[in-house]
């Protein structure tokens, strides 16, 4: 039996998953429901299904990744697909032509599913136009990371029972974050109140037009939040003069107990990983019972299984 069959009345009429943009609230909810089933499966001793038996899944990562790549690999294997990992080093970069050449080459190998991460926004969409298989965006530049937003939503829903009406504060490097963009789209679609909290130098221009409340102070932005979602601050941001340094960043924007106390007592602490302890998050807060960081990783596998499942129904060459 397919796990998709267990989620009744769910229709997912898309060939690719390129972003949260374009998904209806019903489709998002359907994917989350399907992910719940996948969670159960992943907690069994026998985790193997044959939904994707005979299908080929290629992980094509132009940017280094540990958890996203391995969870797609596991998700594919648990559903019975043949999984191949291709890491393309950043040094052999990668103009538009090169990317398309790569796509054409891979297409000739006749995969069924292609999971792509690329450092350039829009690259995954470009690639999807050149291949015959389904393409899943595993992160394109600062644009979208749809499966991360889905796993975050699943984690929230499992703890809070719902998404609608929750106050979610997304904190940190909003400017460069694809996680933030996908989460803003998804959480807004499901009726959450989304805030972004960052120094002005890390806020994207016009972000308020995406339907978020903008704060430049953690002490204000976290007030009565149900969810505190921290983003990773890359060290390059300091060299590029967006923030002065680690000490100052942690003092004003790092999540410690003092700032967390402004949120609701039962607020969840989330982080897409990998964490910079002592930069954007206090080490003890990261390990606190309020933190659901490890659960996010577990939900990552489930959500990716659900996405593969949903897309598999419309695979070409059926």
């Amino acid at each position, binding site marked *: 039996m397919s796990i998709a069959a267990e989620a009744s009345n769910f229709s997912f009429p898309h060939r690719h998953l390129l972003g949260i943009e374009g998904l209806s609230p019903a489709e998002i909810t359907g994917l989350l429901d399907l992910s719940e089933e996948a969670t159960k499966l992943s907690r069994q001793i026998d985790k193997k299904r044959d939904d994707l038996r005979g299908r080929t899944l290629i992980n094509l990562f132009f940017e280094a990744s540990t958890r996203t790549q391995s969870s797609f690999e596991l998700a594919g294997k648990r559903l019975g697909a043949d999984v191949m990992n291709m890491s393309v080093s950043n040094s052999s970069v990668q103009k538009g032509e090169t990317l398309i050449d790569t796509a054409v080459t891979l297409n000739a190998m006749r995969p069924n599913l292609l999971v792509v991460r690329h450092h350039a926004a829009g690259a995954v969409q470009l690639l999807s136009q050149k291949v015959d298989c389904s393409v899943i965006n595993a992160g394109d530049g600062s644009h979208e990371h749809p499966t991360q937003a889905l796993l975050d939503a699943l984690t929230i829903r499992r703890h809070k029972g719902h998404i609608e009406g929750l106050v979610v504060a997304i904190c940190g490097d909003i400017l460069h974050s694809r996680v933030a963009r996908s989460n803003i789209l998804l959480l807004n679609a499901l009726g959450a109140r989304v805030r972004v909290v960052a120094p002005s130098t890390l806020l994207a221009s016009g972000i308020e037009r995406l339907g978020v409340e903008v704060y430049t102070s953690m002490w204000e932005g976290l007030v009565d939040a149900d969810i505190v979602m921290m983003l990773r601050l890359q060290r390059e941001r*300091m060299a590029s*003069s967006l923030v002065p340094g680690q000490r100052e960043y942690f003092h004003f924007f790092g999540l410690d107990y003092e700032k967390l106390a402004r949120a609701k007592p039962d607020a969840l602490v989330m982080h897409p990983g990998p964490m910079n302890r002592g930069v954007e998050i206090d080490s003890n807060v990261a390990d606190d019972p309020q933190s659901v960081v490890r659960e996010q990783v577990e939900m990552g596998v489930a959500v990716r299984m659900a996405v593969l499942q949903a897309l598999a129904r419309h695979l070409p060459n059926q």
Partner: protein
Amino acid sequence: MTAMNAPTTNQRSTARPIALVNARLIDPASGLDQLGGLLIVEDRIADLGRHIAAGSLRDAEVVDCGGRVLAPGIIDMMVSAGEPGLEHRETLATASRAAAAGGVTTIVCMPNTEPVIDDVALVDFILRRARDTALVNVHPMAAMTKGLLGQEMTEIGLLRDAGAIAFGNGKTSVANARVMRNVLAYAKDFGALIVHHLEDPSLGQDGVMNEGEVATRLGLRGVPTAAETIMLERDIRLVELTGGRYHAAQISCRTSLDIIRTAKLMGLPVTCGVSINHLTLNENDIGPYRTFFKMKPPLRSEDDRRAMVEGVASGDIDVIVSAHDPRGAEGKRRPFAEAADGAVGLETLLGAALRLYHNGEVELPRLLRALTANPARLLKLNSGRLAKGAPADLVLIELDTPWIIEPERLCSKSKNTPFDGARLEGRAVLTLVAGRPVYNYAD
């Protein structure tokens, strides 16, 4: 004169209230200009007005001001005080004595020291040194980029919390527009004031004085006014983009004044200062290569100087600074092109500024506002005004006293004054900081 004798410091905590009576009270913040008295209790202004008069206050020590002007003490936003690292030129102690003698009760010291004030520990150092050695209030301005190199911004939040009152880049401009944008955007979140020196480094590179006929006759390389106006225009576009609070440290030419006016009409959070030198001197004063007139920005044309005066009179120029920059013989006794920039100015600031009043160019309250209330507003200080509860930082001004500048009598450790031998009219005769006399001309 009849001013009081300065009590010694250990009397302060038990000091009697002081009543300064028979004074012309001028408070530029409120527009007050009337005869009356002012009562000091401890370190604050307790009361002021016509009703404060001799005989009305039994237990107070009464000082008859003889109708002289009593105004808030001057707040000087640009002082190089030598510490740390340049103590051979000036120290906080000598700078503060010079300040007191000039009626200046608060100084903002510049970050271009050795090492540069770009770290919390150095802000703390300045505040502790000032507490221990300075007669007047001292507020450090911190660097806005690390090492003043214009590349990485400093810890603006932590520096502000440590006591940095504003952020500047010394006598250099941040050439990189992206860095300047980030600094303005980041500083905005902390309500921090960015004070920027204006000189495009590539245009100003070889210049040693104002570009034009005088420089050509002297055979000196010039700095065009465009070096200033290009940087100012750029900064204003970045303020428009970021909303950061921006203060042009000093402008020196007519075009800059026009740019500032336009920015203010647009409602941007933009203000500017001018140095006393650029209000009272011009490029012709350089004469035979006199290095004491070498400044940064350079002294400009007479038309530019007149524009600066007009800007103060109209209020478009917010602040007058001394641009006090002590330099020894090792910096000044050199060929003009190789000599150091800068002039001392703390002790001559008020007397030189009063030239504008005596010439009928600027009304006295307007002049004093640019020296007191306006800098206080920009720096968010409680001083700079005559008001109940405000700190008793005061200056008693004798408007008509003629005096001649004798460099060897200056309190400043360095004597590089462009007013050497100048005849000034009017000066501070009594200066009080937190209710305590720190300078008395009669002594």
